[in-house]
């Protein structure tokens, strides 16, 4: 993690749920993922050993959904030194000034940085959105299947109840025939009663069904996903021999984000400022100045979309 650029990276200081973000000293500090800390029973003040070096845990972070999280995060410089990979990174986060610029910036990065793979927040959102659509379709098909099964079961139960009722009423029908009722009249009477009961049951059933559906709709969680700033395949992991994503100059990932809606607020983002790439928009990160800054949640779907749009309008970046 590039501790000097806190607002763009795998996570931001706001996502540190316990403890604090990296300090400015040279002390060996580590921030661990929540789930990893829970699994290993780690807490603030505990230590982890990486490459023979001991790091003190200063915070526990909640890594965003959609990002490929790591277990342990340390300062970039210390990890580069530890991995003997000075000046090298595996993921660079870039924030464009406007959503309209994303495509251009992505193209420029890919053109400029040999072997760079650019993943925009929109790409990730589309991937997650597609998954949600699939899940929604699956839920819809399941509901249809259950409806058909329910109707068949209801028909079967109604038929059995009617048959049972007729069986119990044999004496009654015999009496009616003795009183002069014709066979047709008896059948018509039974059918009429069954239809009336069926209609009444249908009305009650529909009312209960609608009420039940409304209740489920009100209480059940909706399909929703949040795409964080640490986009998939872009989160810095243990660099070098300690992590899963070993640094390689030819496999640099670039996570590109931008405000949506094309707000006319040109603003140089952190990743393009000194300490980031050190260059203008669209430039690739010069070797040795890569930025791994945290960024806010990038994209939300459904209800999340609206929230994020509101946030964007109020000045947040997506």
């Amino acid at each position, binding site marked *: 993690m590039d501790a000097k650029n806190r607002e763009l990276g795998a996570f931001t200081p706001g996502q540190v749920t316990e403890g604090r973000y990296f300090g400015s000293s040279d002390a060996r500090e580590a921030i661990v993922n929540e789930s990893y800390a829970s699994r290993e029973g780690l807490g603030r003040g505990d230590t982890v050993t990486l490459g023979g070096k001991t790091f003190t845990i200063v915070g526990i972070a909640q890594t965003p959904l959609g990002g490929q999280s790591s277990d342990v995060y340390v300062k970039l410089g210390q990890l580069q030194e530890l991995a003997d990979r000075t000046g090298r990174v595996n993921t660079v986060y870039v924030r464009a000034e406007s959503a309209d610029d994303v495509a251009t910036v992505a193209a420029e990065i890919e053109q400029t940085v040999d072997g760079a793979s650019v993943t925009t927040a929109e790409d990730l959102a589309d991937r997650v959105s597609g998954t949600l659509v699939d899940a929604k379709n699956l839920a819809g098909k399941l509901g249809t299947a259950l409806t058909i099964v329910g109707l068949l079961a209801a028909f079967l139960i109604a038929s059995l109840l009617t048959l049972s009722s007729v069986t119990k009423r044999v*004496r*009654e029908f*015999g*009496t*009616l*025939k*003795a*009183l*002069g*009722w*014709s*066979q047709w*009249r008896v059948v018509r009477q039974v059918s009429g009663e069954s239809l009336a009961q069926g209609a009444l049951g249908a009305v009650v059933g529909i009312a209960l069904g609608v009420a039940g559906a409304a209740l489920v709709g009100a209480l059940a969680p909706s399909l929703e996903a949040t795409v964080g700033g640490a986009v998939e395949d872009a989160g810095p992991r243990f660099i070098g021999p300690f992590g899963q994503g070993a640094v390689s100059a030819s496999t640099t990932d670039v996570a590109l984000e931008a405000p949506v809606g094309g707000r006319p607020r040109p603003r140089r983002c952190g990743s393009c400022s000194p300490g980031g790439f050190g260059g203008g928009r669209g430039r690739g990160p010069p070797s040795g100045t890569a930025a791994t800054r945290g960024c806010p949640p990038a994209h939300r779907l459904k209800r999340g979309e609206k929230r994020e749009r509101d946030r964007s309008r109020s000045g947040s970046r997506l």
Partner: protein
Amino acid sequence: MSVTDPDPVPVYELRDVSKTYELGGGRVHAVREVTATIAAGDAVAVAGPSGSGKTTLLQLLGGLDRPTSGSVLFEGRDMSTMGDGDLGALRLRTFGFVFQQFNLIPTLTAAQNVEVALAPRGGRAADRRSAVLGLLDSVGLASRGDHLPSKLSGGEQQRVAIARALANEPHVLLADEPTGNLDSETGAEIIEVLLSLSAEGRRTVVVVTHDADVAARAHRIVRMHDGRIVPSDELAPATIGSHS
């Protein structure tokens, strides 16, 4: 024990009537070669032990079943050759049935149970309700019309059943063990009601019973055993009723 009947034509004439059922691979001869006549306005008790064929004979008289052989003539018409529709019409307009178990519909009130017998004839509902009230009044239950059968005593239920049987002003009243589920006092009252119906309206009443006291109150007694009519001193062999 006989009643005067100027009508020379008997209401019923049974000619060598037999009824056989196929049960469990075997044959049961419920009624065997019965030949008899019943005069109009007569009150006949059919007595005998269980399984003697009393109820089967009553079902044949009421057109609820057809004989296996022989003929059952009602007012000169052979019921054994009638279609279901004709038999149904005959039951509706000519016969009234009273059962041992009352056979009232439990979900209907006493008045509605009586009205059930009037329903096939159609007509205005108000007229039917008026007729029902009159019928219930005739059996002493005018104030019990709104009660469900479960709220009535056995005697009251049987009175409702009699009112229902009389709804279409039948010529013939057929009662199957009408006192079988009643205590002796209530049973006597019911028999009195049935016999009075015979006396009042020249209505023919046939009562199946195994109760000797009930049978003794009828104008005629027919004793049955193993599906056959047993000759007695009071009754000419194979003859029910009298025209003398």
